[in-house]
């Protein structure tokens, strides 16, 4: 959509910081012209699992690699990493990664995730980048549960200069969503971004509450929410798969915002999520400042898995 220009470079720049020796040990076995053997596949497995890709998807990738080797699509160790990179990149075609917009009226983005995944900060980033590109953005503080969550979003709204709809802590989050939808339409906003309270996907009541918020939004604005983003902490391990599954059941997640990708974690679990649940990654968070956001770029992401 042209809003996230130059983000691929930014993404690249923020990634690839200090990392464990894992990757170097991979390159040590990938010596020139060496034949593909079990020791090498073991090392490869270690690399993939250390990226949190998970044992199931790792097994699948290695099986595909073996098949490619048998059918002579790859011949030497030099071909392995390029083969896997290409293979993984294809998980996310470009059309999958675009932000879904409303045909007319405000585009509504509903944001959810487990506690501490980075929802409020990620929303600030989205609001910042959209408003900087001339869009009128309203954020809604539907996290009425956590202490000072409303204040946290209010501070961000003020800093980046977007409007906020909020109620008191402890009030009904669905009511905040209702008011926010009305305001977005009345004020002719381009985007409405709804923050929700962090919840573990195992908390059935809270997941039902989330469904209710979604229903309220759909009731107020046809076809909304246009985008339902699950905020996923890049350090999360295999539990992310269940999270994605349960949140999708509750609010039909359309994309993932992979937060905190500026650390040493590579967020490989999104490969398993795409593979098993077909949910694409749309954005990545790369720092604590509002501008530390980039559109998800499979090339950069995959390079980092093997660098």
């Amino acid at each position, binding site marked *: 959509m042209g809003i996230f220009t130059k983000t691929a470079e930014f993404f690249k720049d923020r990634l690839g910081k200090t990392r464990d020796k894992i990757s170097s040990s991979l390159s040590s076995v990938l010596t020139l012209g060496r034949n593909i053997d079990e020791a090498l596949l073991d090392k490869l497995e270690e690399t993939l699992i250390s990226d949190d890709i998970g044992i199931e998807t790792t097994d699948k990738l290695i099986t595909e690699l073996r098949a490619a080797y048998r059918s002579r699509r790859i011949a030497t160790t030099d071909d392995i990493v390029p083969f896997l990179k290409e293979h993984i990149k294809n998980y996310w075609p470009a059309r999958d990664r675009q932000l879904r917009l409303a045909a007319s009226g405000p585009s509504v983005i509903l944001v959810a995730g487990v506690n*501490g995944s980075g929802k409020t900060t990620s929303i600030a980033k989205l609001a910042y980048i959209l408003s900087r590109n001339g869009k009128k953005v309203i954020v809604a503080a539907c996290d009425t549960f956590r202490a000072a969550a409303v204040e946290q979003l*209010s501070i961000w709204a003020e800093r980046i200069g977007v409007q906020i709809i909020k109620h008191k802590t402890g009030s009904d989050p669905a009511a905040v969503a209702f008011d926010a939808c009305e305001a977005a339409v009345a004020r002719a906003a381009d985007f409405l971004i709804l923050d929700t309270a962090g919840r573990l996907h195992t908390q059935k009541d809270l997941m039902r509450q989330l469904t209710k918020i979604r229903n309220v939004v759909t009731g107020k604005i046809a076809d909304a929410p246009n985008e339902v983003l699950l905020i996923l902490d890049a*350090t999360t391990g295999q539990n992310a798969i269940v999270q994605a599954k349960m949140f999708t059941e509750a609010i039909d997640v359309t994309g993932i915002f992979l937060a905190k990708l500026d*650390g*040493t*974690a590579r967020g490989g679990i999104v490969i398993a999520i795409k593979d098993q649940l077909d949910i694409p990654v749309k954005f990545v968070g790369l720092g604590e400042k509002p501008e530390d956001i980039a559109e998800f770029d499979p090339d950069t992401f995959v390079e980092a898995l093997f660098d």
Partner: protein
Amino acid sequence: MFESLTEKFNAVFKSLSGRGRITEANVSDAMRDVRKALLEADVSYNVVKKFCKDVSEAAIGAEVIKSLHPGQLLIKIVNDELTKLMGPVDSNIYFVSPGPTVIMLAGLQGCGKTTTAAKLGKYLVAKGKRPLLVADDLQRPAAIEQLIILGQQADIDVYSEDSKNSVKVAKRAVTHAQKNGYDVVVLDTAGRLHIDEDMMTEISNVAKAVEPHQIYLVCDSMTGQDAVNSAKEFNERLELDGVILTKLDGDARGGAALSVKAVTGKPIKFIGVGEKLDKLEEFHPDRMAGRILGMGDVVTLVEKAQEQFDAEEAEKLQRKMAKGSFGFDDFLKQTKAIKKMGGMKDMLKMMPGLGGKLGDMDFDDGQLKQIEAIAHSMTPRERREPDIIDSSRRRRIAAGSGTQPNDVSGLVKTFRRSRDMMKALSGGSFGGLKSLFSGGFNMDTLTAAMSAGRKIKQRSKRKRKIIRRGKIKRR
């Protein structure tokens, strides 16, 4: 195919020897399952690798009772080892005198430091302390407000300042606590990435300034493979004293617990199990092991089978005791069982009708070995019917066991006496026991007289070796 082969092999092996042992071949399937389970639980790849290697090496040779598959026993062993690795439990907070005791929390963004600070405060109040929470997260918007609100909810005082200097805030907070008679200071800090050099320097400066008595790493139980990287870095920069594992009320298997313990060696002190402020619990390694491995059904099965096995053996033995037909064979079986069950004292407590009646009787398990050596040098018939042992047999047994003939006769005499004692006990007449003991059933004098300082011969040594191999050394 392979599985059925293994099973056949096991069946043959079992029928030959009466019971199986764990071998590399017969547990390889189970080991693969264990490995997969641990990786799925997010235990670090390298930690899994080392753990699996150590456990399989140590488990080889362990005896498998008839009703079990070696793989099942292996899983039980793995479970026990995981428990050991994550232990020992140490939920103590070490308070200093004079106070205040300063506790600092550190961790990545969103791991749950602020909530944990309030929970810890509440826990301290319950322990009779007067804590002060300090809002030293000056980075995240509204982090201070959040702690103030949580403090109000828990009725705990919160120290905060409108400042950008976390070192100064921490220092003044501690001074404030000293002046106002708080026992404990709980320092909440900003979440930070372990590779953020500026922020890591900042937190070590805070630590240098206030010299916390305890520094805890707060770790999200949903963390994946990266847990080792961050924990290692925080530990190197801050010298952690313990770990608090959060968000365990979810369904994450929590392999990070094992990874963090493995790389830092620091005990897991508490776990967070809910958003409410009383949801802080002490850590239980056994529960965590079960959660990470996720094979509780197999573990329970093995435990039950072992109990059953022990119960059957005990019953057989009791029948023999009642009849007075208890021989040295039974004795040897028992010594084995005694070792397995943790010693003579425990074993006697388990005997039907005996629990508690023995009071403070002392038994030295080490002396059993010498008696074992003698028993092993007997023929099967001699073991069954010790009464046939004459002077010629005595000499042979003594030579075979590296003891003196009078040691052998001493043992046989004592053995007869104890057989009578058991018969009496099984009959329920407790009075018999006392008279027997006063008559001199005393293992100390017996074994001392028998073979003071003498070597135990080869056979016994080999036996001990096997027993030792069955055990798993702690790392």
